[in-house]
């Protein structure tokens, strides 16, 4: 080998074998890579597939058609010309359960025994009363007439009708007894049962009844919480990044701060929850379960992420831009705010959106500050008791009713939709404003 005068024999068998081995190694490596991607994609498809298959029925509601007569006796006479307060009082006093029972008995006149009547009315959701109250509130003139309405069925009927529970099993193994199944089948034969997109799911708050439970309350809760997070973490994070990157002297102190910010970004989120509990609730006495506390807690968690992303974006602005502006006599603040920050903004916003998406999916710290409560009302502001989407998912996943399984998956789909939308905006922003220097 050391004799450089000797020609290499490129055609020798040994050389050919070496070449063949090299090609084999190349293609082997390529297939390992493809295999890894296929495996990852397969797992993802399995995960999303199972969520979607389970979740789709969660978006629907099974309804039963009933003839309901709004008996004026129940409302203390006609409601025509009454003030809204009087209407509300009349509605509060009215026996809507009775109207539903009457409506059902008009279909099944044979059912008279007390127990059977209870089983029959159990087919209809307890939330149906609120539906009727709603109808009267919107049109008080309806009192005195008999109208055909579609009312939500109970979750047990829903799971039987959409097939997630079997009806051909022993009576003791299902939630509906044989009589209820027979009534249900009679209703189905007369087309009095239908499945529709559930408006309650999209517009309602949480409920003990799966068929009435909705994500809107937690979506709004997430919105208020993220609003607080953004309002706190964005300006603080960007200003901190600008100071550290553009103004701070590079010395031992700034190194120490940098290391600690990186450490902060790696702290488990539940620790921030405990911090929020200790500081915001116990020391500052802010309202428990409120978006303001959740938002402030998530802001603590998101800020280091924003600082790191913003510093990277500022660092990516070429020094020649700074030199050019400084050479014209721009002050440090002018250089930063006229040139560097606007150029870094798309990168900063990308980091902010990814940080916010992270905050949107966060559960653990919010459990610590009491946002895990059962909240029926839609929160109207940052100090109302609220819960957020991931916590709502956690709560529903914990509920024993079979119908909450599909609600859980449906809520996961809603959460994933928001996350994908936010990440898509981040990607678009990056693509749109990407600069070549």
């Amino acid at each position, binding site marked *: 080998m050391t004799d450089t005068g000797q020609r290499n024999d490129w055609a020798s068998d040994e050389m050919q074998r070496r070449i063949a081995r090299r090609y084999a190694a190349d293609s082997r490596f390529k297939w390992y890579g493809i295999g890894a991607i296929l495996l990852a994609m397969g797992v993802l498809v399995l995960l999303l597939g199972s969520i979607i298959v389970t979740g789709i029925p969660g978006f629907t509601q099974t309804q039963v058609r009933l003839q309901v007569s709004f008996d004026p006796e129940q409302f203390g006479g006609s409601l025509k010309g009454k003030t809204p307060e009087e209407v509300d009082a009349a509605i509060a006093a009215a026996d809507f359960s009775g109207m539903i029972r009457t409506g059902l008995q008009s279909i099944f006149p044979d059912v008279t025994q007390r127990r059977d009547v209870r089983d029959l009315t159990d087919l209809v959701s307890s939330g149906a009363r609120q539906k009727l109250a709603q109808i009267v509130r919107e049109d008080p003139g309806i009192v005195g007439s008999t109208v055909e309405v579609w009312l939500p069925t109970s979750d047990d009927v829903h799971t039987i009708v959409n097939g997630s529970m079997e009806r051909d099993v022993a009576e003791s193994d299902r939630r509906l007894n044989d009589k209820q199944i027979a009534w249900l089948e009679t209703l189905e034969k007369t087309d009095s049962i239908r499945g529709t997109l559930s408006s309650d799911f999209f517009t309602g708050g949480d409920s003990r009844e799966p068929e009435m439970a909705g994500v809107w309350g937690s979506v709004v809760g997430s919105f208020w919480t993220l609003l607080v997070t953004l309002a706190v973490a964005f300006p603080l994070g960007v200003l901190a990044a600008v100071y550290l990157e553009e103004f701070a002297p590079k010395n031992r102190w700034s190194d120490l701060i940098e290391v600690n910010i990186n450490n902060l970004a790696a702290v488990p989120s539940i620790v921030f929850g405990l911090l929020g509990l200790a500081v915001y609730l116990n020391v500052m006495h802010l309202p428990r379960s409120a978006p303001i506390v959740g938002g402030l807690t998530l802001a603590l968690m998101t800020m280091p992420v924003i600082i790191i992303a913003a510093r990277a974006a500022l660092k990516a602005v070429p020094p020649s831009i700074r*030199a050019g502006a400084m050479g*014209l*006599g721009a002050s440090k603040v*002018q250089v930063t705010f*006229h040139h560097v920050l606007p150029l870094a903004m798309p990168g900063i916003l990308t980091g902010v959106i990814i940080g916010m998406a992270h905050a949107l999916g966060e559960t653990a710290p919010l459990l610590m500050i009491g946002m895990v409560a059962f909240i029926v009302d839609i929160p109207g502001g940052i100090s109302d008791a609220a819960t957020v989407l991931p916590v709502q998912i956690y709560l529903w996943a914990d509920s024993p009713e079979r119908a909450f399984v599909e609600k859980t998956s449906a809520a996961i789909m809603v959460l994933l939709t928001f996350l994908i939308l936010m990440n898509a905006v981040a990607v678009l922003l990056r693509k749109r404003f990407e600069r070549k220097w």
Partner: protein
Amino acid sequence: MSTEDAKLKFQTRGVHVFYGDKEAIKGVDLDIYNNEVTALIGPSGCGKSTYLRCLNRMNDTVDGAKVTGSILLDGTDIYDRKVDVVQLRARVGMVFQKPNPFPKSIFENIAYGPRIHGLASKKSEYDAIVETSLKKAGLWNEVSDRLDEPGTSLSGGQQQRLCIARAIAVSPEVILMDEPCSALDPIATARVEELIDELRENYAIVIVTHSMQQAARVSQKTAFFHLGEIVERGHTEQIFTNPREERTRDYITGRFG
């Protein structure tokens, strides 16, 4: 007072620059005159760019840089605490090695300097400044119909002339140029050199260059830097035809560097 003295712009004596422990410039004395181009030549790392950056205090922005000695601009020490560095940089403009227009419109590139210094107030005044600056930089005919386009869309040579126009727009007294043609092709270089020769009428110009021919073509005075010191300075013609120092002769004939 002799005419030489009347034209004196920068007088620098015993300038030292330290980057941390490293002494980048070891006592440089140099005078820079109005209506003249002073070329700073020398091998890479000899300190000529560092010296240039002392003249508008751009070294202030480098962490750990320390400048000592006296640098007088019209008789005032620019490192004096009373001197406003922002105003100094408006009086002493700079053009960089790589064209660095702001990623804004051509108009905004020129108008930025006057705007931050409050040199104009009305749109018409800005229009006038932009037009004269671009004309002085010989770029007006090429870009007058597309002032709204980004400065970065121009060719390399046009970008560099845009940067020169940008520097002119704040009416500086001195223009520092740090290898302004090193990123340009020969044709663009020729345009910029012509421009430098024209600008000499109104400004004092200091140019750092690696090209001997360029120094010989555009400058009246030349200073040869080596290892942080000035080896020889004088009239360009004398330096290039009859250098007094051995090292200068070796460098300009290409024997080292």
